[in-house]
């Protein structure tokens, strides 16, 4: 059962250990979509995952909580590329640059 609804703002493309997120990440359905794709990548034995936010200027705490769980509990290496300056600043303010190895470009 989908309890989140299907009203997502984003589109994602996955290629091996790389996930690209297009559009503005905004709501819980966006979180659900990103989580579904990353869980799939982990089940395909990818231990280093690169997440590229192509446009988004912010992310939700549910995504941050999920990525923290993946990093800390599942021991997956996450590398976030935040192409938007505001998104990079948000990660910086939240003190997450090191843990998610956040960079501004690929």
């Amino acid at each position, binding site marked *: 059962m989908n*309890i*989140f609804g299907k009203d997502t703002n984003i589109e994602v493309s996955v290629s091996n250990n790389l996930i690209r997120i297009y559009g*503005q990440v905004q*709501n819980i359905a966006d979180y659900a979509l990103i989580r579904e794709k990353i869980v799939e990548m982990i089940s395909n034995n990818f231990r280093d995952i690169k997440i590229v936010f192509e446009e988004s200027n912010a992310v939700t705490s549910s995504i941050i909580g999920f990525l*923290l769980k993946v990093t800390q509990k599942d021991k997956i290496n996450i590398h976030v590329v935040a192409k938007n300056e505001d998104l990079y600043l948000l990660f910086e303010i939240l003190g997450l640059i090191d843990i998610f190895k956040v960079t501004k470009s690929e």
Partner: protein
Amino acid sequence: MITSTSHAYRYSETSEILREIRVLVVDDDYLTTASLEMFLSPYIPNLLCLNSPLNASYYLENHHVDLLITDYWMNDLTGVELIKIAKKYNPDICTILLTVEDRLPVAEIVNLGVDRYLKKPAMGTKLLEAIEYAVHRILLKKILIDKQKKEIELMKYKEKYNEYHQKEAYKKQVNILKDDLKDATFLKKFEVGDNIYYFKSFYKPREILSGDCYSIRLIDDRRVFIYLIDTMGKGFSSSITSINSAAILNYLISKYTTRISFPIINKTIKKFLDFIKTILLDEEIVCALFIEIDFRDQKILYSNFSMPPMFLVIDKKLTIIKPNNTPINKNTNDFKIDIIKIDNLEKVFLVSDGIIEAKDRENKIYYHKLIQSIPKTKYMKNFLKKLNDELEEIPDDVTAIFINKVSFDGYFKKTFTINSTLKDINRFIKIFCDRLNRSKRFKNISNKVGVVLSELLLNAHEHGNLGITTDIKDSEIHEESYYEKFIAKLEKTVNKSIKLTIVISLTKKQIYITIEDEGKGFDRTSIETGYYSKYGLDIVNHLTDEFFFNFAGNQCFVLFDLKGKSLVSEAIPLELKTNN
């Protein structure tokens, strides 16, 4: 020590070393290398015997060798020449020279640092003793490294131990300080049209244990008691006075259990002085500011014992209220309390001397810039950013309290009722932000509004209506059962809604959003201690210009400032439809 009786061998630290090291034996006499290999291989698993000194020199160049046993007289190279080559590649190599020759270049051998010299045939106890002597340096080095490792481990442990206790001490200190109105208003509920006073505080000790302390206490539904204390000196001594002051004051305030109509400031200061004088040293002084604000009668009662002045903005004009008492010391008995009428009060700034005495980047005292900027400072965020931009360094503990008023009204007002389910919340945010996104004026902030709504509506849903604590949320996220199992199950049993009101003020160019749930409210400080779920409020704080809760925590308010953008002719999402 190795002991050998008929080659019997007792295990010791040296024998352990021999099992770990790489040994090269070089002699151009095949019989010698064969017998040495037969004798030594039970003790030395990593043993290589070569007959060509040239091959040996290539081997030494490309491999790490710990012990070299070499004959002196060989074709192509002498043992001394081979040892020179070996030392070139590994200066720490241990060496034993074997020979039948008595006439040897002793000086050269000594200068070269050969560890042992043995006459051939070298076998049995003598050889084992020579090896033991030769490798003693490796043994010593190993002991030294082990010792260093242990010391490093001990240091790491001590560091962690101290860090742990410092963190615990800080937690204790913060626990003693009580901020009933952290990012909150004292109001139980607010409506469109209300003037709301809300409280923001910033507390940054320079050291873990600080000489600064403060508390903001709600006495009843109209009165707030605040104190700021700065004890003389630095380090543990001043923090002991500071912590004791906070503990006794909060104890005294907590005793006002019944609703008393008279001011508490006089009684509180008297009892505080009685106590603090018993612990102050002869020459110790305490600076303190006590204020009691009565928002119904619109007055502030204050007693300032040499703390920095209070800054009040009334009708857009700055009023500086200077101290009315000298610092507290062992002999303080009398004190003065004054009253200020606060009709049309807009802001109150209370700061400790850390900010007043700080120097700006031009090395000038910051105080003058501070008083110029206070009337123009709209939000605590601006104030902190300004401090960060303009100060070279903050030399002392910093405490700042900002009481601000927001008039919550505008030309566009609309209230929406959203079913408390993830699906309906998601649908609402999608529709709302799509409408904002279609508007030229709001397009730029539509995603930030969306993320903020997502955080606050989910907060109202999860912590408010479903009553989920931070601990439970963290644990369910960890087990990957939070949304699909835990929330889905709760949503079936709870039938509540969330009220969202949006107000747009064209004159102030501000958007206000309030969100109210049907829960009892929640402990805002517990959110900050969450592991996976602590980031939501930080995100809201970052993306909005102002943000606060009502006292209980079941209603919140956010403000987006659109200064510089014209909203007059802009289409506002007037006909927003949701599933409801």
